[in-house]
C-alpha cells in the first residue's frame, strides 16, 4: 500500500457533444486506445470515434428470441402431445395454429429480458462506484458537460505528454482521476 493513490486516468471536460467527438477522434488518431467518454445523453458516433465496433446486443437478443420461441413451442408441444394429450373436439393433438400466440409471447418475453440483461452484463452494471465519480466536476456529466477520460493503463499514457495533449484540445478543465 502506498500513500499516493493510484491514478485511473486524465479527464478533460467539454461543453458540447461535437467537441467531445472531435477530441475522441484526435485521441484515437494519436494512438490512445484505453479511454472512455461520458456524456449526459447518447451521442451518436462517439463510441465509434474511440475505435469501438458495434455492440453484441442484437446477437444476444436474437439468441434470447430463439430460445423463447423454440422453448415455448417445445413446452406446448410436449404438454399437449406427449405428457397430457387431451382430445378437444376431435382435433389433432399437435394443433399448431393454436400454439402460435403463446410461442409468440414467449419469444418476445425472452428477447426483451435478454436485451436488458445483456446490456447490464456487458456494461458491468450495477457498479455503484467508479473512479470517475471522484472528480467533483464529474457531477455535471449527467447534466450539461461532456468528458473524455484517457486511462492510465493505456500503453501510450504518460502523465505529462497526455496532459499536454488534452490541453491542446482546448477543454474547460483537465483533471487527474484517482482510484
Amino acid at each position, binding site marked *: 500500500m502506498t500513500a499516493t493513490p493510484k491514478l485511473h486516468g486524465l479527464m478533460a471536460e467539454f461543453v458540447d457533444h461535437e467537441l467531445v467527438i472531435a477530441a475522441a477522434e484526435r485521441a484515437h488518431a494519436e494512438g490512445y486506445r484505453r479511454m*472512455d467518454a461520458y456524456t449526459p445523453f447518447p451521442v451518436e458516433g462517439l*463510441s465509434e470515434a474511440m475505435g469501438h465496433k458495434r455492440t453484441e446486443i442484437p446477437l444476444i437478443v436474437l439468441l434470447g428470441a430463439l430460445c423463447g420461441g423454440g422453448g415455448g413451442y417445445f413446452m406446448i408441444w410436449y*404438454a399437449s402431445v406427449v405428457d397430457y394429450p387431451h382430445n378437444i373436439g376431435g382435433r389433432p393433438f399437435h394443433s399448431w395454429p393454436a*400454439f402460435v400466440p403463446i410461442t409468440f409471447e414467449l419469444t*418476445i418475453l425472452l428477447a426483451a429480458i435478454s436485451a*436488458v440483461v445483456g446490456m447490464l452484463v456487458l456494461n458491468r452494471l450495477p457498479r455503484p462506484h*467508479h473512479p*470517475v465519480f471522484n472528480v467533483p466536476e464529474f457531477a455535471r456529466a449527467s447534466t450539461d458537460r461532456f468528458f473524455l477520460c484517457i486511462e492510465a493503463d493505456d500503453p501510450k499514457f504518460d502523465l505529462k505528454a497526455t496532459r499536454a495533449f488534452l490541453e491542446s484540445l482546448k477543454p474547460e478543465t483537465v483533471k487527474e482521476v484517482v482510484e
Partner: protein
Amino acid sequence: MNPETNNESTRSDRTPKWPASPLGYPSSLLAPGESYESVTDSIGSIVLAQKHPRSWLFGFAVAFALLMLLLMAIGWLFYKGVGIWGINVPVAWGFAIVNFVWWIGIGHAGTFISAILLLLHQKWRTSINRFTEAMTLFAVACAGLFPLLHLGRPQVFYWILPYPDTMGLWPQFRSPLVWDVFAVSTYFTVSLIFWYVGLIPDLATLRDRATTRAKKIILGITALGWRGSARHWQRHQAAYLLLAGLATPLVLSVHSVVSFDFAVGMLPGWHSTIFPPYFVAGAIYSGFAMVLNIIIPVRKLYHLEHMITMRHMNNAANVMLATGMMVTYGYIMEAFMAWYSGDVFERYMMANRAFGPYGWIFWGLILFNVLVPQLLWSKRVRTNLVALFFVALSVNIGMWLERFVIVITSLHRDFVPSSWGMYYPTFWDWATLFGSIGLFLTLLFLFIRFLPMISISEVRELVAEEKEGHK
C-alpha cells in the same frame, strides 16, 4: 420567423411565443432558449426540490380514498365470493371483464407512443413517452387485477401457469384464456423493462443532484451506478431500440389476444373476424383519450407548457380522430355483417343490441364514441384544452360502454329464449370499477411525485438538435 399566437387562452403571458408552422400549428417541440441545464432543472426539480401544489395532495387524497374502496370491495369479495356481483347465468362475465378490457386498452397508448413512434422517428413523442409508459404499467396492473378477482378461487390462480404440479396437469394451451395470461403478463413485463431501461440515465441525473442522504442512497441504488459512458450509451441505445422493436408487435398482439377471448367463442356478437383489428384501434383510441385526460391537468399544474406543447395536444387529438374513425368503421361492419350473413341469431343480436333492453347503452356509446369526437375535425377544438379534455373524457366513457355492449348484450340473449336473462350491476361492481380508477390514480400521483415524468436525457437530445438547427 413570424411568431403567431394560437388559440390557447390558458397560457400565461410570461411564456414565450411560439414559431408557427405553415399550417398555423405550433411547430416547435420545445420553447425557444432551452438549455441542457434548464430542461434538467425544470424536470428534476419537480421530484427533488419543488414544493408540491396543494392540488397534488387533494388529488392524491381522493385517489387514495378510492383505493381504500377497492380494498374494501376486494376484501368482501374474498370473504363472500363472486356472488356479491351482479353476475349469474346467462351473464357470467360482468363488470370484471368489461373493466379488464377497458384498462388493457388504456394501456396501449403508452406503448404506442414510446415504441412505435420511436421507430417512426416522431420526435414529438419525447416529452410524453415516460409519462405514458407509466400510464401503461398502471393501467395493465389494474387490468390484471380483474381476471384474478373473477376467478372465484383466486387463491389458486397459479393453476393457469405451466409449472410441474403434483396433479400431473398442464394448462389448456389451445384456450384463448390461457393465451391471455401469457399475453398480459408478457405485456406487463416488457413494458416494465422498457420503462426502467429508459429511466436509468435519468435516475443517475437525479442521484447527482439529490440533496438528502436518503434520496442519494435510493437513487444511487436504482440508477445502478450509471455514469454516462459512451460505451454504455451505445449498448443502452441498442437495447432500447430493440425493446421498442419487440414492443411494437407486442402492442398489436395483446389486444388481439384479448379479442380472441370473444372472437373464438361461438356467441353471436362475439364470433367475428373483425375483432382483433377493431380492438387494437379501440385500445389506441381510449389510450390517447386517457393520455389527454391526465396530461392536460398535469402540464398546467407543474408548468410544463414549454415541454408538452400544443403540438403534442394537437397530434394526440389527430391520433384520436383517426383511430375513432377506425372504431366507427368497426361498428358499421359489425352491423353490416350481421345483416349480410342472413343468420337469424346474428340479425337478432344486432336488433337487440340497438333496440333491446340495453339499447340506451348502445346509443350512449354511439354518442360518446362516434358523434362527440367528430368535434376534433375542428382546429379550434383541438387547440382548446378544456374542449379537448371533455372530448377525451367522452371517449373514455364511450369505450367503457363499448365493452359493456360487447360483453353483456351479447351474453344476455343468445340462441334459446328460455336461457335469456338480465344483468344488473350491484354496489360492489361499481365499487370495484371506481376503486380500480383509484388504484390507477394513486400510482400515477406517486409516480409524478417521485420519478421524473419526462425523459430528461431524451429532451437534452432535442436541445442539442435545436442548437445544431440554429447554427
